[in-house]
């Protein structure tokens, strides 16, 4: 019994690593999503080209290969990352590429009449984006961002391949030490699922908060 509680301790440690990866990866993904999403809508060809290249590259190659590059190949270029840093980098850049398309689509979904009102009120391009377009587009992005974050959570499992001690890694440790597969992998299955539920729930309550007043219901 005490032996099992030690193993559960390992898995909890792994859960913390997975949560850390998910949070930090999501922050990087969010930053990349806005940079590349706005870049794709830029007036400037160079910015559009850079953003498009980034998005196509990271959507077109596997997260697995990207992670190995970040961890094993970058050191040859003089950039040595810890497993956690490499994991955050690969996950953030990969999911950021998908989320950039969400940003772009949401901005494009805002009607022309909103832009025209901004012009009539003499707002500059960036003022209009910052105060009128983005706040409305954000509401459109949120549900899909929730999906992206869950995708990112699930993708964190690949970091076990570069020996970062996340949930999946610890489950394998427990399995090799106990010879039992069912218990550790059922446990992490439940933990991943609960984490995903937490993300859904968090995004949905954020969405409700932001949508307040937009539908004509008394605030």
């Amino acid at each position: 019994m005490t032996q099992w509680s030690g193993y559960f301790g390992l898995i909890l440690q792994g859960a913390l690593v997975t949560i850390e990866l998910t949070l930090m990866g999501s922050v990087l993904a969010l930053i990349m999503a806005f940079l590349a999403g706005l870049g794709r809508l830029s007036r400037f060809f160079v910015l559009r080209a850079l953003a498009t290249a980034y998005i196509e590259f990271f959507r077109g190659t596997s997260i697995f290969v990207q992670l190995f590059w970040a961890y094993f190949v970058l050191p040859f270029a003089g950039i040595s990352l810890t497993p956690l840093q490499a994991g955050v980098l690969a996950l953030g850049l990969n999911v950021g590429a998908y989320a950039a398309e969400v940003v772009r689509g949401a901005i494009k979904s805002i009607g022309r009449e909103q832009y025209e009102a901004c012009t009539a009120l003499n707002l500059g391009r960036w003022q209009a984006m910052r105060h009128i377009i983005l706040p409305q587009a954000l509401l459109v992005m949120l549900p899909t961002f929730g999906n992206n974050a869950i995708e990112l959570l699930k993708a964190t499992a690949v970091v076990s391949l570069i020996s970062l001690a996340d949930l999946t890694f610890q489950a394998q440790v427990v399995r090799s030490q106990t010879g039992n597969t069912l218990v550790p992998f059922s446990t992490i299955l439940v933990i991943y699922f609960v984490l995903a539920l937490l993300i859904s729930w968090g995004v949905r309550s954020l969405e409700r908060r932001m949508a307040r007043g937009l539908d004509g219901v008394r605030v």
Partner: protein
Amino acid sequence: MSAPIIKIDGISKSFGTFKVLDGLSMQVMPGEKLALIGPSGSGKTTILRILMTLERIDSGHIQVDGEQLYHMERNGRLLTADERHLAKMRQKIGMVFQLFNLFPHKCVIDNVTLAPMLTKAMPRAAAEKRAMELLDMVGMVDKAKAMPAQLSGGQKQRVAIARALALSPKIMLFDEVTSALDPELVDEVLNVMRKLAAETDMTMLLVTHEMGFAHDFADRVLFFDRGRIVEEGKPDEIFRHPKQERTQGFLKKIIAAGHRV
């Protein structure tokens, strides 16, 4: 006699192969209340949108308040206006849209204060004080904290008028501002515009199908057809004694459709 505040000089505008405006010229005097009437598709909205810089012209010149709108003079040469010049010119002009175009994520007073705070660096307190005066004028003070979605069409349009006025433009453009409203809400908006006309010396250009209102409101009426001014004159001349056949035909149709003249 003072100089015209708007001088349109031979402008043309096409959408694809369709020429909406073909060498149009017209002038508007400071403080004048001008009604633009005419059949659907005759280019009335396009003229207002061009003045608001929402649409570019293909050729011709427009002078607003003594300066070129789409051109700027540099060392005696006329160049195409850049964004900075356009921004300067837009300060002189405000527009109210048929579908209000309020910002749905901002409450009424924020809709009104946003542009003065951002484009004129007006402090919040001053912007809110001015906004409350304007909301008072349009009868919307008690809804200052409401969201646009909680308002009726007429209320939205009155807020949109206050929002445009907050930048104190010299020229206001109104594009069929009552045509998206339920009939019983039309008057509350028209009353605001009457008040505006009586209390300010703003130049006002009005595109409308409300012939009765155009008759009372306007100093001068322009009848458009296919991008050209077919007839112009004092409201009484146009509405009571139209000279052109096309004007007569248009008014007859409008009256038959139940509009009051």
